């Protein structure tokens, strides 16, 4: 009956599914009568490889979780790990919207070297300092990945209403949480297991995008391993470097610095760097970024987004929360109206 109720009644829940590289996350936030948003359910499942169909066992587990949470038939927003996307910026002459869409498609195919039949391409307008030209954010995602994600969500009993890049959703989450993100020059970094996405924004407009490939999950695990080893009283650390210190993030920090130098030059420098993703609360990551890039670093934690019985276990929910924030905003706007 709950299934039909979700279909018939006006939805007051924001549901998001995040196909992250390290886990499949699902969150449902419900608006209470007093206007506060209460987390109804948030669960994690083992990661799903989207280059193939979801396995039956995993699908059954996902369906069971969705059904147990009473989310059957709910509209949901889907985010996919950004490492499955191709992402870059481009500049094109100013033209009308239809021509721009066609040109962006052609530019993306040429830029990423992908087949039009196998990839879905989207673009967004960016401001451009050069007169007579406009900036474009180009994204391409394999059709197979999109189809597998869609099928997985639909087979689990949910109704997808949008699919977007996890980094973009996390940026939206950061925008919701940090009021000052829309003013001045600010850097935002979304760190995933296999890719970190750096975005530079000036007065709320994206100026620069760079995806940095790397096995960032193993870098993060070095700290856990080191911490576990440190807990053994009968072991003496002979070489501190082996335990992984602040400088295990140096490669990411140096690449970030190079990107920012390229984008900003010497004239201006971001006022701060906001980090989201699983490792965003790693003090050493924030410390390294601050030390190398010379700017204040802060993380987009998952706390404070909604009230619930239990705290979210990690800080990896930024993408899901950012996707759900679209429905939270629209519901709040409708209620206010």
């Amino acid at each position, binding site marked *: 009956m709950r299934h039909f109720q979700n279909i*018939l009644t006006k939805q007051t829940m924001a549901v998001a599914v995040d196909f992250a590289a390290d886990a499949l996350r699902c969150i449902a936030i419900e608006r209470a009568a007093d206007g506060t948003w209460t987390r109804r359910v948030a669960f994690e499942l083992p990661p799903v490889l989207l280059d193939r169909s979801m396995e039956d066992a995993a699908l059954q587990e996902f369906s069971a979780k969705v059904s147990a949470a009473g989310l059957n*038939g709910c509209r949901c927003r889907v985010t996919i790990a950004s490492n499955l996307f191709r992402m870059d910026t481009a500049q094109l002459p100013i033209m009308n919207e239809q021509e721009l869409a066609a040109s962006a498609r052609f530019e993306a195919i040429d830029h990423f070297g992908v087949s039009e039949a196998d990839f879905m391409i989207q673009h*967004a307008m960016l401001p451009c300092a050069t007169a007579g030209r406009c900036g474009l954010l180009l*994204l391409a995602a394999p059709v197979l990945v999109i189809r597998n994600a869609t099928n997985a969500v639909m087979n689990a009993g949910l109704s997808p209403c949008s699919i*977007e890049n996890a980094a973009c959703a996390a940026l939206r989450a950061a925008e919701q949480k940090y009021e000052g993100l829309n003013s001045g020059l600010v850097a935002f970094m979304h760190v995933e297991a296999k890719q970190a996405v750096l975005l530079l924004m000036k007065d709320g407009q*994206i100026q620069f995008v760079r995806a940095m490939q790397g096995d960032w999950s193993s870098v993060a695990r070095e700290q856990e391993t080191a911490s576990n080893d440190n807990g053994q009283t009968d072991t003496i650390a002979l070489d501190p470097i082996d335990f992984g210190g602040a400088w295990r993030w140096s490669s990411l920090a140096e690449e970030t610095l190079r990107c920012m130098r390229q984008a900003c030059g010497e004239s201006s420098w971001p006022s701060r760097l906001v980090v989201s993703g699983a490792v965003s609360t790693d003090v050493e990551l924030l410390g390294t970024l601050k030390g190398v890039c010379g700017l204040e670093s802060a993380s987009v934690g998952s706390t404070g987004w909604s009230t619930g019985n239990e705290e979210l276990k990690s800080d990896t929910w930024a993408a899901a929360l950012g996707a759900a924030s679209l429905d939270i905003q629209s519901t709040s706007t409708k209620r206010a109206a």
Partner: protein
Amino acid sequence: MILPILDFLPNETRRVVHAQRSKRRIALLGILLLLFSVGVSAHSWNSARIADSERTVGAMLVANAPGVDELMNTLAHEQSNLSRALRVSDGLLPTISATSVLATVTNMLPERVSLIGMRLEISDSPRQMLVVMNGVAQTNTDLANFEHKLASASAFRAVTISESKAGEFMGKRVEEFTVSFQVPLCVQVCKPGTMRMAQGGVN
């Protein structure tokens, strides 16, 4: 908004999702409609059953009870007969007799006034006795005195001298007159020669 949503959901999938939701919505509405129909049908069947049983009871009562219409017709007929009989009885046997009226008038008659003729009729509406008297009086004063006595009696109403002319009676000059008045049928005879109103008037 820093970045608009870059939606990768394929249009055909969006259509499928929309169609799926529509299908589920229609299915649920169909189920609800079916349940509603079953409920209404059950309610109607129950109401029809109750009405049928009430109709059966009514038919049994009609079959077993005496004919009300026939009874009413009989009563109306009897009432009509009774009314007619009462009217006949009132006509034949008024509550006051002409003799009592004559005795009362005679009692009021002055010495030099004589009655020659008298006619009494009973009218239905209003129910009263109409009296017309002919007579002779020696003088007009005697006639006026007689008319005054009649008018002052509460049992007599509308005393009128309808005719008065000079004439001759047994070789003497007299005043021939005609007097009419009405007597309600509700008057009571107190004693021979007097009458009073049933409401309590005394004469």
